[in-house]
């Protein structure tokens, strides 16, 4: 997030795109509702009638995968009606002319045709977004998990720059990060192309810095992404996998492919707190300590680094992940793994990661710190890009965009679009499926389908249904609801007994390599 | 169209109807008339005219007030007198057509009176009859005369002239006028209306609202319903003037869904008013825009409380909120809101039209204008009456109401419904005004007035009203929710013969606490019926508690039936009728009631032949063997 959670409540306009905030990020959802109650305007962009749509001032119910068109259409209205922030664009941005040029293709008639949203509604929402300052955009997987994911994000950024809604309190472009520490895992360089702090592995001077810090020779070729790793396991070029705290069996798109890959790989270590479905394919399983049993830090979606504290002794013979990694490394005679506490590890992180440079456990005792926090006297950064953008020129770059179709489009054989989402009552599943009450509140998978589609495909409420995509098939129960638009069905992926992701499409966004779990065509049959 | 042109054409229509060359039949068909059979009577007239090939006009109007005489039919023959007939049935309708319309016999025995300047032998002048003589029908001037579904009737009788006049005045001047008139809120509270308007006028903000409280919920009260059904445009005009004055663009009429005819007539009137340009955009060609909406209440008594009413319009549960802030500062959706009763708004056009002095000339020093009551209970002439403020209770009950019905003896009069109090005969000369009634322990209320005779048990009356408020409290604040329940429980025990000596003190103590501590008007007034009956009829409580006796012979546990030996002939009728076999006695021998078996159903009293009258009901409990 460019801004902080607590600022959302003071935004005069909130636009929630591709996020079911009250389910996925309940506490941020509360902030949105609170802002709405105080009088903020709310724009919801989502194919599904999510809870926030109930009170939204503008609910744009677009066809899945048409976000770029919708957002560009809004930009076009803002431009045509002169509602853009001229001085912000002049002083802080570049590439405006090319962007304006690309807007020519997005007249509202064609935008309405592509997105299915009435043009008056688009225009009204655009005016609303542009005229209330500050305006904050929240987005989530509904924006990123598409083949056009990167374009979607750029379209969101274009809109924010166009109206000068960035670098100011309660404004900004705010991706809501899913996992408790997905931000931190990225910050820590658990990405194939960057070291901690997003320092590229391909840059000579960066590599040199890490070689000297770690006392090891490092390779300059970027590694493989998550999906590519499974492809390579499948093809045999990767022979050993160290899988820490993840369950691809339920979470990976086109998961049967991932499962086969796990079967094929020669040696696989799984380190987890439970014997997950994926762990069954492991050669060695290591018992890890849960978050309640170890010290350390998590970095939340607003870049706030916060202290995790050990509340109880590790259960059984389990150990903290950092201890296990150190132990393996030491047994492989590696240097630089003689840590006795997470605090020591953080000291090393701070020394090699400029944005974490000023973060120490001692400072965190008094509350979290938002990075960038380069030095020990730096107060942290609640709002990004207040003066310059992290680009070569320091300016925000407008990106011309064009509409691209999704990888799969409904046809006779697969007439419906399946989109995946998350329930309020579960996280991925490994933890929440083991909390009794949560499984009372939501005990099984349900295919959500529009009443008219249900009639068309002969489905009964609570009846059984077989859902089939090009990649796989599952059986589940039907929940008929008009919260799903016609032509779209949705499922969660929390239930290992109904592994939704064996159906999803492994087509990737070409830049970010994000799989396109939000658009996958399926057919449904009553069983 | 200019207002003068609208008015001219409306007047033409009205005069054409009144002075037409065919007979005009005017039928009182508000809810009261309808429930007495007005629509059937109307149909009979239509059929008769059709069968006989007579040309005639039939018009439905609202309510004229004398409920005891419904259905009321007004017949005006061309060039003839204007005669009002009472209790008209289908049979009487046929007779009237035959004898009066076709021939020329006005059948005086069916007439209630003549209207206007007409004089007919054998028929009194209506306005000189006791029921009408002491009345001052200002608010209800149109009621029972004009067709409430025809806006032109209203306009022809001075309607919308007030609005036209107001729109030419500065809003501040309108406030001045209302203040000068001395008008006080007719919902019961009696707050000076002009001051309320001034608060709203002065409250900052572009968005303001006007709300009419038409959620008439007191048992036995029907003043607002009658006015809405008989003359709905008066309210619309009054609210529009209010909107203009305080700067509101939107108004709501909060009317209970149990008033379907009133709602229908209001909606019809709103549509007509819009069509004529008295509502909507650019009212009467000016810059003022105002829209009105009827909002249906779901029948919760507490929604008559203004803040609960606002919560209900906002879409929430009708729960009151603490005041201040008052709605004039922060009302509907947090905006300044003017909230008045149906009658209050309906006075406004008349005050603007005829001037504050005219209104201030009616009534007393502190209570100006007229008061409207729904006079019911044990009174000969029940009905809807409008009297000048300051008139005494005695005048209302004895002159207008014709005294206690069935020759009964006056015991008490209850005003103000569940929030009001019961006043005894010693207070019959209390003048009707806000302050005198309050001083006596009752309130003006919105206009319910129930007359009670010696057959009314005052403890039971208190129990009845408390049972009502207890069931209708919203449950939000502690004293009202739980206190009324405890008080009700005590009253129930007293009427069931389980009263304890300390009960009355506890009722007073709790009643005072509830009045002081409750959140809204409902709780703050709920103990009134109890406290006033204790104040004026303490001896009845004592009789119930100490003597285990109900002087009104009403509380089953506190009365006894006995057979008077001197009168009993031993006919066995009562013994056979007794459902519990409590009566023993051989034929031709004096019967005896076994008090331990008697359930005091009264069948024996009912069945004892009139020529014997050997069974009597007495206050108190007879012990076994006591006869």
């Amino acid at each position, binding site marked *: 997030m460019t801004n902080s959670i607590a600022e959302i409540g003071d935004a005069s306009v909130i636009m929630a795109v591709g996020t079911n905030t009250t389910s996925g*990020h*309940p*506490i*941020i959802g*509360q902030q949105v509702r*609170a802002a709405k109650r105080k009088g903020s305007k709310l724009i919801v962009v989502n194919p599904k009638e999510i809870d926030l749509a109930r009170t939204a001032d503008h609910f744009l119910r677009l066809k899945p995968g048409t976000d770029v068109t919708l957002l560009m259409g809004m930009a076009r209205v803002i431009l045509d009606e002169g509602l853009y922030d001229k001085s912000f664009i002049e002083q802080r941005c570049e590439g405006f002319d090319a962007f304006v040029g690309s807007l020519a293709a997005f007249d509202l008639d064609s935008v309405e045709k592509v997105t299915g949203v009435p043009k008056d509604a688009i225009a009204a929402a655009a005016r609303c977004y542009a005229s209330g300052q500050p305006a904050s955009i929240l987005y989530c997987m509904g924006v*990123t998990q598409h083949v056009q994911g990167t374009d979607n994000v750029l379209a969101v950024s274009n809109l924010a720059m166009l109206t000068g809604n960035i670098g100011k309190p309660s404004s900004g472009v705010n991706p*809501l990060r899913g996992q408790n*520490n*997905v931000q*931190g*895992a990225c*910050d820590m360089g*658990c*990405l*194939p*192309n960057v070291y901690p702090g997003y320092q590229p592995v391909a840059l000579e001077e960066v590599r040199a810095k890490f070689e000297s810090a770690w006392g090891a*020779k*490092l*390779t300059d*070729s970027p*590694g493989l992404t*998550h999906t590519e790793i499974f492809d390579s396991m499948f093809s045999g070029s990767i022979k*050993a996998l*160290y899988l*820490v*705290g*993840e369950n691809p069996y339920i979470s990976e798109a086109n998961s049967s492919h991932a499962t086969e890959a796990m079967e094929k790989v020669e040696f696989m270590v799984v380190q987890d707190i439970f014997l997950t479905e994926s762990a069954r394919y492991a050669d060695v*399983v290591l018992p890890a300590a849960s*978050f*309640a049993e170890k010290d*350390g830090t998590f970095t939340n979606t607003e870049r706030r680094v916060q202290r*995790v*504290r050990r*509340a*109880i002794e590790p*259960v059984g*013979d389990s150990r903290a*992940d950092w201890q296990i990694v150190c132990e*393996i*490394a030491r047994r*492989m005679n590696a240097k630089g793994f003689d840590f006795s506490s*997470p605090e020591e*590890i953080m000291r090393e992180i701070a020394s090699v990661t400029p944005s974490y440079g000023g973060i120490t456990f001692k400072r965190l005792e008094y*509350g979290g710190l938002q990075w960038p926090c380069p030095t020990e006297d730096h107060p942290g950064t609640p709002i990004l890009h207040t003066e310059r953008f992290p680009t070569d020129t320091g300016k925000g770059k407008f990106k011309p965009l064009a509409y691209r179709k999704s990888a799969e489009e409904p046809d006779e054989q697969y007439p419906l679009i399946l989109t995946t989402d998350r329930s309020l009552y579960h996280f991925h599943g490994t933890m*929440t499926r083991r*909390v*009794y*009450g949560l499984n009372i509140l939501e005990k099984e998978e349900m295919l959500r389908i529009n009443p008219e589609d249900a009639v068309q495909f002969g489905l009964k409420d609570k009846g059984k249904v077989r859902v089939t995509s090009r990649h796989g098939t599952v059986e589940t129960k039907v929940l008929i609801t008009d919260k799903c638009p016609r032509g779209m069905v949705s499922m969660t992926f929390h239930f290992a007994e109904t592994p939704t992701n064996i159906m999803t499409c492994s087509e990737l966004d070409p830049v970010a*390599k994000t799989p396109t*779990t939000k658009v996958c065509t399926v057919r449904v049959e009553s069983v | 169209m200019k207002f003068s042109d609208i008015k001219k054409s409306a007047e033409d229509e009205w005069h054409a109807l009144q002075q037409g060359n065919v007979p005009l039949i005017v039928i009182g068909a508000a809810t009261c008339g309808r429930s007495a059979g007005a629509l059937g009577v109307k149909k009979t007239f239509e059929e008769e005219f059709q069968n006989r090939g007579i040309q005639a006009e039939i018009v439905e109007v609202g309510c004229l007030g004398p409920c005891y005489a419904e259905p009321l039919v007004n017949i005006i023959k061309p060039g003839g007198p204007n005669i009002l007939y009472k209790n008209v049935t289908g049979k009487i309708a046929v007779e009237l057509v035959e004898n009066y319309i076709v021939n020329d016999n006005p059948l005086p025995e069916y007439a209630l009176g003549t209207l206007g300047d007409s004089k007919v032998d054998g028929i009194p002048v209506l306005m000189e009859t006791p029921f009408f003589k002491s009345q001052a029908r200002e608010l209800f001037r149109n009621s029972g005369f004009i067709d409430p579904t025809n806006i032109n009737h209203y306009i022809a009788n001075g309607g919308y002239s007030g609005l036209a006049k107001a729109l030419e005045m500065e809003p501040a001047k309108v406030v001045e006028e209302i203040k000068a008139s001395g008008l006080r809120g007719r919902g019961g509270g009696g707050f000076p209306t002009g001051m309320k308007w001034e608060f709203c006028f002065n409250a900052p903000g572009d968005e303001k609202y006007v709300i009419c409280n038409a959620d008439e919920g007191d048992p036995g009260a029907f003043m607002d319903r009658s006015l809405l059904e008989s003359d709905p445009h008066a309210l619309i005009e009054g609210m529009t003037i209010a909107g203009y004055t305080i700067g509101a663009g939107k108004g709501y009429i909060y009317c209970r869904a149990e008033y379907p005819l009133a709602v229908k007539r209001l909606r019809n009137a709103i549509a007509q008013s819009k069509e004529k340009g008295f509502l909507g955009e650019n009212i009467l060609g000016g810059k003022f825009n105002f829209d009105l909406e009827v909002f249906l209440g779901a029948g919760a008594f507490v929604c008559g409380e203004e803040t609960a009413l606002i919560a209900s319009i906002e879409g929430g549960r009708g729960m009151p909120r603490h005041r201040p802030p008052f709605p004039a500062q922060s009302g509907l959706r947090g905006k300044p809101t003017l909230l008045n009763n149906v009658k209050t708004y309906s006075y406004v056009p008349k005050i603007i039209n005829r001037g504050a002095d005219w209104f201030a000339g009616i009534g007393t020093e502190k209570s100006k204008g007229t008061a409207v009551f729904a006079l019911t209970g044990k009174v000969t002439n029940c009905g809807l009456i409008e009297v000048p403020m300051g008139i005494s209770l005695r005048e209302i009950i004895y002159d207008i109401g014709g005294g206690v019905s069935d020759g009964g003896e006056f015991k008490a009069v209850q005003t103000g419904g569940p929030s009001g109090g019961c006043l005894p005969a010693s207070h019959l000369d209390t003048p009707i005004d806000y302050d005198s009634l309050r001083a006596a322990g009752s309130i003006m209320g919105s206009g319910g007035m129930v007359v009670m005779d010696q057959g009314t048990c005052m403890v039971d009356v208190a129990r009845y009203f408390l049972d009502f408020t207890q069931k*209708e*409290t919203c*449950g939000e604040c*502690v*004293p009202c929710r*739980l*206190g009324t329940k405890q008080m009700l*429980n005590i009253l129930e025990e007293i009427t069931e013969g389980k009263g304890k000596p300390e009960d009355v003190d506890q009722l007073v103590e709790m009643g005072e606490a509830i009045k002081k501590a409750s*959140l809204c008007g409902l709780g703050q007034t709920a103990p009134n019926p109890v406290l006033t009956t204790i104040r004026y009829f303490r001896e009845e409580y004592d009789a119930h508690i100490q003597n285990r006796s109900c002087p009104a012979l009403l509380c089953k546990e506190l009365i006894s039936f006995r057979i008077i030996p001197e009168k009993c002939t031993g006919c066995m009728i009562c013994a056979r009728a007794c459902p519990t076999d409590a009566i023993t006695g051989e034929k031709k021998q004096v019967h005896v009631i076994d008090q331990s078996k008697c359930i005091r159903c009264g069948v024996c009293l009912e069945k004892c032949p009139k020529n014997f009258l050997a069974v009597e009901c007495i206050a108190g409990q007879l012990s076994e063997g006591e006869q």
Partner: protein
Amino acid sequence: MKEKINLTINGRSVTAEKGMNVLEASLRNNIYIPHLCFHAELQPAGACRLCMVELDGQRTTIACKTPVEEGMVVRTESPEISETRKVALELLVADHDTDCLNCVQNTKCALQRVADHVGMNLKRLQRLKFREEKLPVDDSNPFFTFNPNRCVLCGICVRTCSEVQGAEAIDFTNRGSEAIVAGFGAKPRIESNCESCGECVVRCPVGALTEKDYERPTHQVRTVCSFCGCGCGLFLGVRDNRIVSAKGDINSRASQGRLCVKGRFGFRFVNHPERLTSPLIKKDGEFVEASWDEALDLIVEKFSRFKGDQFAAISSAKCTNEDNYLTQKFTRAVMGTNNIDHCARL
């Protein structure tokens, strides 16, 4: 800095901030005024009528709905106020399940506090009729119970649901003494759009809303929730080396004390019997328990054979920064490959 207001409460000169109400100002200055329906995070309702005060020696009103004004003179006690409060308290107690020892809120109950302050008189109390029949308990939610017999209808849960959570799942229903708090149409909470966040349970001043299977922790540890990216501050309650409760951290900048259903009630996976407690090695297709040495040696042996791009590690967005840092460092520095990723895109 908010404007300071000077006022006198019970003869003591105190200061308050502009915008505060008299009850807040009084409590802030350690002067207790009996109250049930007031909660600092919610709009005052003025429903319990206990916080009556006398202003400027004249009118009596309720403190929670009266904004402080400069020079205001407040008295929190007077014979009239005491009497009215006594009546209100007695009414509440007569309507309340008084089996206090079996109530989770015993000693922390706001009604007990009021009773303690106002004073109970058994003789007076016995003049009232106690509620005889017990109202049915709403046990429908798996995490908490609503016992209407212990409810004082303060409405804090209703306001919490609308003002804090924004779910608007519950409201008052029925009229008069039958009034209770329930889901729409007097339905059980599970059938409402309750999101089970438990914010109402936390704020219930009496024992009406209580957590199921509650165990009082012996101590609490301040940490961060491990579910989504909001990063809510959490106090984990510990008893016998088990996690028994979770409570929001009011000082957390991210969450300001709030938690969702997972954060508040989802901690029981930690001590779930299926937790892995020992390393496992697959032998002939079956997992067998192994010692750490055995498992680690096997891993070291295999990993040593697959150094370079034949190796990949997938780290976890559930793990700490320190865990993740070391996993990527290990992958890069020890295994010699950049094949490190995690589930960021899922």
